[in-house]
Every structure is written in C-alpha cells, then in structure tokens.
C-alpha cells in the first residue's frame, strides 16, 4: 500500500522553522558572548589574570566556532525543505528542488526568517528574498513580492526562482498542485 503523500501544514512548517531559527540564534549568541569574553581578557593587559584566563577562554571560543559553521543545522533545514519541496508540490520538468520549495512557500504564504534563509543556503537551497520575512530580507532586494504592470497584472519582483510566474497568485491563496499546470505558470 503506498504511503500517503502528506505534507506538513503551513503552521507546522513555521513552527519547525522557528525552532531551527531559535536554535541557531541561541548558538550564535553563545558564540558572541564567548568572543566578547576572550576579547575582554586579552585587552586587560595585566599578566596574572591573562595567564589564568586567556587559554581557556580562547579554547571555549574555538570549540564553539568548530561546532558551528552551520554544519549542525543544515541537515535539519535540508530535511524540512526537501519534505515540502518533494511532497508538497508536483514536479514540473526543468524545475529544481529550490524552485519547488519557493513555489510551496509562496503558495502557502510562508515567509522564512533570514536565519533560516542562510541555513538553507548553506545546505544548498536558494530561497528567494520575496519568500523571506520583509523585516528580515536583504534591503537591496526589498521591493515587495510583486508590482502591477501597465495592464494591472502582478509581476514578481526579486523572485528569481519564481520568474516563471508572470501572474503570481495572491500570497497564501494556495496553488493547486494536481490536475494540471499550477496557477500562475507562464504558458509555453
């Protein structure tokens, strides 16, 4: 019996993405404080405290640096992205998994955090800036998800992987993934 092709809901994706973001942010905070401690000890310019404290503080910072480098976070982001890209969308010839992920995000109305965007990038995924929360996105790419052309049709802006969408569906309106071509795909 085939397994049901169930996908996480928008709410489940956002919850998991949120936990991955918080996990990374917590780790980054720890690294920042460790770096501050090391700098402070080094800048004391007093022999005895430095002798006692520099080496352990340097080791602490290096330990955190070694553990980080996204390596502990990419696998979980990768599994979540792969899950929604493969189970949440129908494959269209020529589309990459990143494109399918962007399509799912767009159609579900999910906006990822900047941290999650960066972790995904380290895992090999390209998430368009228009699928990143506006207060988190790259300011250079902040032009809004789409504008209207002279005919009143929305044109995606800053959505490189979504470029096939000449007429993107409204945010979060949901895109049919079966029974034909998804809404918004450019006709051949």
């Amino acid at each position, binding site marked *: 019996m085939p397994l049901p092709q169930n996908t996480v809901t928008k709410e489940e994706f956002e919850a998991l993405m949120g*936990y*991955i973001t918080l996990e990374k942010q*917590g780790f980054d905070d720890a690294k920042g404080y460790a770096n501050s*401690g090391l700098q402070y000890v080094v800048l004391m310019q007093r022999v005895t405290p430095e002798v006692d404290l520099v080496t352990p503080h340097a080791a602490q910072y290096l330990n955190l640096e070694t*553990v980080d480098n996204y390596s*502990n976070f990419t696998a979980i982001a990768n599994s979540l992205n792969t899950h929604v890209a493969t189970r949440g969308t129908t494959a269209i010839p020529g589309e990459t998994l990143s494109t399918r992920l962007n399509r799912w995000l767009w159609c579900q109305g999910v906006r990822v955090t900047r941290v999650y965007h960066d972790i995904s990038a380290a895992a090999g995924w390209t998430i368009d800036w228009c699928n990143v929360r506006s207060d988190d996105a790259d300011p250079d790419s902040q032009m809004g998800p789409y504008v209207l052309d002279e005919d009143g049709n929305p044109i995606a802006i800053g959505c490189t992987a979504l470029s096939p969408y000449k007429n993107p569906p409204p945010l979060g309106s949901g895109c049919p993934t079966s029974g034909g071509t998804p809404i918004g795909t450019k006709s051949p």
Partner: protein
Amino acid sequence: MYQPSGLLTDQEFMLLQGLLGSGYDGLVRCQESLETGLLVVTYSSNVSVEIDMLYAFEANANEVNTFLAKDLMAKATLSLLRHVENRGGQEINDYLYARQMKVTRRFAELSSGLGYAIEPDNIEA
C-alpha cells in the same frame, strides 16, 4: 577591601561571569529549541513527516547532546572560579559574600554543573 595581587577586580569578575552566564543561556536556548523541534516531529501524526525528518532531527539532537551546553563553557568557567580560589585565597561563596556581589542565575547553574555550588544568597534574585 583587601585586593590580593593579580586578582581580577570586582568589576572584571562581574563582567566575565555575566558573559559566561549569557553565553550559557544561549546554549540552553539552542538545546531547548532543538528538543522542541524534535518533539514536534516525533509527535506528528503524519507518517511522511516522520519518515522525512525524524532521522535528521534526531541526529542533530545527538550531535548537540555530545557537546552538552555546560561542557562547551566548562574550561573558561573553571578558569574563572579557580582564579578566584587560587589568587584570592577564598572559596567562591566567601569571595562573593565578602564583596556583596551576586552572580547571574545562569552562571550559578553553570558553576553548579562543574562542582562549584553557589549559595542562593550569592545569586541575583
């Protein structure tokens, strides 16, 4: 207050314990978020969710558990506690009490995990 030669000043000690406590807090939050994410996947009633994600989330949890939060901060924290003991000639609780200094709750947790229990009177409310 007599200040033994080579001992950190009170301000220096307070700043360093604050940084260590805050760093530990970040690692604790990291671990809590990770465990919550794992629970969300584990308790999902959706078969595909578990098949696709359980292994990665569990592996991530195992990796993080191998460098349990306090172990990453252990050397630096121990160096600070031992500095106070060795250079100041006082046990950490006496050192704090004599100066009426109170460490952060997170630093106290970190120290306790390393065998240096800090008395409640010496911990911030």
